[in-house]
């Protein structure tokens, strides 16, 4: 018990750090869900593709990298974001847009199909072998209340935070953001406002996928390993995080990611690694039965 208490800061920080990855991916999940009510199962795979693009670029530029350091990594990350963004848009155009107005579950199935295609497409191109990332973020650490906080962790958290704040501002303040929210409420109504619905949806996919791509590169650089199935579990986690936060709600997704990270971290401390996910899901279920719309989800008082 004493051990547990002295561990708390570390448990907390570890949870927060993983949570910020979940949050970054959950954002894309939530945005897409928010606008077209689709559980985009291919989203986690975009994260994986992002990591592979980062890997490819870094391998190509090879040794020159080390001299430029973090700055270069950020550039690579931006290029990956651009490419994953475009891939997200293409997936949307090919697999989701033709089904606008079809039953929602039909789109869910194409999403699973797209997920298979991305995973095994990458496996076919890059071989199923896991790859070691050419760049590793190593660095010193500082002790905060007894928790080891490493410099790379701080840097990644800052990047993730900056991306999230930028996105939140974009959604809340700009007219495109407003249009996104409008489309999610009433697509036909938005058309009558002159909103180019498909263009805005494309943009949503672009942003969501770009964020996932960024997370992929960051994960590659931090953890050092990438493989073609790396997006699957984290995709499910991000989906869970998005729901905890109140699916469709941007700030909720961020919060949900952090909360899930913490629940997992404390969970494995409390019940042991093998029961951790069971614990996390049990907490989720309990939470949702008490608060059925997630942390920040709007209570839709559906008027009868």
């Amino acid at each position, binding site marked *: 018990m004493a051990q547990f208490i002295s561990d708390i800061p570390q448990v907390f920080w570890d949870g927060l750090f993983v949570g910020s990855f979940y949050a970054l991916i959950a954002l894309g999940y939530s945005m897409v869900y928010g606008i077209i009510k689709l559980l985009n199962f291919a989203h986690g795979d975009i994260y994986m593709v992002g990591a592979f693009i980062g890997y490819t670029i870094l391998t190509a530029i090879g040794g020159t990298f080390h001299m430029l350091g973090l700055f270069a990594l950020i550039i690579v990350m931006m290029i990956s974001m651009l490419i994953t963004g475009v891939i997200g848009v293409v997936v949307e155009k090919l697999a989701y847009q033709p089904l606008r107005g079809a039953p929602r579950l039909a789109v869910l199935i194409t999403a699973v199909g797209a997920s298979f295609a991305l995973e095994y497409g990458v496996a076919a191109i890059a071989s199923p072998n896991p790859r070691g990332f050419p760049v590793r973020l190593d660095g010193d650490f500082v002790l905060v209340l007894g928790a080891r906080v490493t410099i790379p962790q701080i840097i990644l958290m800052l990047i993730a935070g900056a991306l999230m704040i930028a996105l939140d501002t974009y959604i809340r303040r700009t007219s495109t953001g407003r249009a996104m929210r409008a489309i999610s*409420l009433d697509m036909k109504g938005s058309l009558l406002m002159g909103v180019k619905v498909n263009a805005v949806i494309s943009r949503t996919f672009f942003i969501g996928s770009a964020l996932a791509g960024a997370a992929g590169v960051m994960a590659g650089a931090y953890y050092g390993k990438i493989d073609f199935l790396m997006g699957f579990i984290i995709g499910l986690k991000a989906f869970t995080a998005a729901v905890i936060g109140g699916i469709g709600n941007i700030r909720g997704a961020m919060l949900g990611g952090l909360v899930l990270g913490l629940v997992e971290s404390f969970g494995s401390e409390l019940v042991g690694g093998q029961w951790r996910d069971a614990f996390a899901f049990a907490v989720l279920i309990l939470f949702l039965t008490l608060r059925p719309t997630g942390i920040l989800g709007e209570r839709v008082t559906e008027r009868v």
Partner: protein
Amino acid sequence: MAMLEFDDVDVFYGKVQALRGLSLQVEEGEIVALLGNNGAGKTTTLSTASALMNPSSGSVQFNGTDISKGKPWDVVGAGLIHVPEGRRIFSTLSVHENLLLGGYLVKNRALVASRLKHVYELLPLLEQRRSQQGGTLSGGEQQMLAIGRALIAGPKMLMLDEPSMGLAPLIVAQVMQVISDIRDQGTTVLLVEQNARAALKVTDRAYVIEEGATTLEGRAKDMIADPRIIDAYLGA
């Protein structure tokens, strides 16, 4: 040349034909009513004009450009604004945000601001509710908001689909007043109404649509007295 012109337009929903060779014209500055039974094709006519639907044949022109193959945003950009059946307020957006969405295509922010000011003056009730969620407004308030939102877009012509539906008599009168004010300020209006009595009071001209085609056309004053209209739409 008419501002809005339908010439022999056919429109289908899948296999169901909703418009069968419909033709009509609305001149600049006019306020014209469309009357007709349920399912006659009134809403379809407006949807076609706003390019939510594209006709399978025939032409639709607005200010001389053909919009029969256009996109809704082109039509909105050209100044033809549709206030749809059921109002379609964005329920969780605030009143203010709803109004801002009306000006989505207007890139000039100053212009949007001045129009907002104008709408708040015209419909002071909306200013009081500025930050309230659109969905929590009462029916009448929502209708005002829908009209206000359309005005922010800077319409050359406004199409309203059953604005009085579900409104209390007092509010119906107010809405009609607002519509005729808008026309007085120079905007052309096309009005679809079941409440023919209220509609004919403010309009210059009216069409009757039956089974997807216009069957009667005339000045509102004449229509009020036309026995066929009285029988079917006025009941007096």
